[in-house]
């Protein structure tokens, strides 16, 4: 296992990171060059220079790094984190969201908070972003497909919002609903999943400080393909549990019907905690490949229980995690 443990220089400052548009430009250029198949290294360097000459920065989003969530791991390059995405509302290929999500309108945007709460409310995105101080946290992201990334997110603990709306004693679960608008999301036409995309947590999971209500990454507002303008990030669960582009949060008595669990209950459980000992029926979950880092010449790295966040283990004390996968 190769984990780079080095100085703070390994983790670039938000301001040092190349804007995503620049990288997108670069990727398109690469694809075109590849048609010419065997381009020499001189041409390759030229391509780089050309792409970097046209900077188009995304909107900055200042936030202080929370030192408690600043692991000594190399950040995934922003170009990978913003061009290799699962966001089926914009298509099922990894490159589809980056290509198609420009049609998503993130302003105006409101999130309605309903159900078992004393103070239901509808918040617009700006007041939601001001509800608690934003902080930057570097989390590992483990996809159920067997790959992982390390991403600096910007947001605050979901518990801040939950406390504000004052759940009733009946609130046992929380449900997140993603926007489902055919006009903005070409993938909605496919029947891969039931729309809208719905995800959920048990109340104690939602209150855990790790559960991050997220509005930015890499020191910028969230790119559309990463779930703008507001999404969840739950680093101890497989990526699909973290709902993107949230329009509704409901507090419920009963466990919500979640998208992948409805689609294939034997393959995707409600909890879907990262667990190297519980295989997906089609593949092993014991190991993973870190995007942008792990290459051809080493074994896959071992996946850690709860993705290396043991602080959540007490939430599941006494539960059979093979049964509640």
């Amino acid at each position, binding site marked *: 296992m190769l984990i780079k443990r080095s100085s703070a220089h390994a983790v670039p400052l938000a301001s040092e990171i190349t804007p995503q548009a620049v990288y997108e430009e670069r990727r398109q250029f690469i*694809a075109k*060059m590849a048609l010419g*198949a*065997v381009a020499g290294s001189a041409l390759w360097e030229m391509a780089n220079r050309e792409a970097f000459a046209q900077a188009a920065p995304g909107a900055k989003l200042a936030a202080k790094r929370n030192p408690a969530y600043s692991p000594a791991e190399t950040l995934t390059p922003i170009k990978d984190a913003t061009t290799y995405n699962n966001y089926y509302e914009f298509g099922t290929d990894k490159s589809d969201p980056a290509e198609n999500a420009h049609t998503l309108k993130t302003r105006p945007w409101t999130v309605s908070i309903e159900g078992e709460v004393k103070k239901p409310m509808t918040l617009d995105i700006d007041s939601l972003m001001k509800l608690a101080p934003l902080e930057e946290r570097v989390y590992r992201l483990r996809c159920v497909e067997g790959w992982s990334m390390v991403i600096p997110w910007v947001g605050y603990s979901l518990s801040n919002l939950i406390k504000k709306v004052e759940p009733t004693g009946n609130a046992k679960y929380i449900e997140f609903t993603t926007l489902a608008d055919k006009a903005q999301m070409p993938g909605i036409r496919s029947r891969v999943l039931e729309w809208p995309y719905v995800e959920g947590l048990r109340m104690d999971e939602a209150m855990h400080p790790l559960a991050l209500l997220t509005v930015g990454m890499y020191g910028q507002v969230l790119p559309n393909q990463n779930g703008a303008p507001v999404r969840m990030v739950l680093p101890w669960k497989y990526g699909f549990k973290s709902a993107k582009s949230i329009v509704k949060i409901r507090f419920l008595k009963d466990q919500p019907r979640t998208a992948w669990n409805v689609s294939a209950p034997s*393959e995707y459980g409600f909890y879907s905690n990262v667990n190297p000992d519980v295989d997906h029926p*089609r593949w092993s979950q014991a190991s993973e490949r870190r995007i942008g880092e792990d290459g051809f010449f080493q074994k896959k790295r071992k996946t850690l229980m709860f993705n290396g966040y043991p602080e959540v283990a007490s939430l599941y004390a006494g539960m059979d995690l093979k049964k509640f996968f």
Partner: protein
Amino acid sequence: MAFNPTPKQFKVLKAVLFVLALIPFVRMVALTVMGAYPDPLAAITFTTGDWTLYFLVITLAVTPLRRLLKWNWLVRLRRMVGLYAFFYAFLHFTAFLWFDHFFDLVAMWKDVLKRPFITVGFIAFVLLIPLAVTSNNAMIRKLGGKRWQWIHRLIYLIAPLGILHYYWMKSAKNNIAQPILFGVIVAALLAVRLYWSAAKKAKAQAAGA
């Protein structure tokens, strides 16, 4: 539609086909070397798998096309297309052994036994080996046409197994439009053969009566 290339034209056609069939491979290597794939190992696995299926389908399409268009010379290109199917299948298998198991044969074998979609893909690959080995004139002479043909009819089993492998893999994510399309095409290519063989039998019976 009667097009009959001269020997010289045929040579050119064959060379063009050889280069065309190599393009997906060259493109994949170029994109990998340039760092254009965020997950090159997954991209290589998927690309080689896709092109194995494409070439299997093209191989199966040769005989129906030849009969429909009366382009008998097409059959002389079939060996190359079939060998390309094996070439991409071999790369696909190597990617699995290398990237998923880092050449740990025991771990690979466990995976083959444990997961039905891999079992099926592995069987399809193993069945392709005798076809590739006997795809030369010396082996045809050695085996005799009848026995050689019997071996090569394994393709009727290999192609559906390959599609089942693809279908099972994709169904994990409910994303089955493409495997269904492959299935329909291969079913049609096999059905036309059944129809011809039934028609031939009926004709023979009529002649015998």
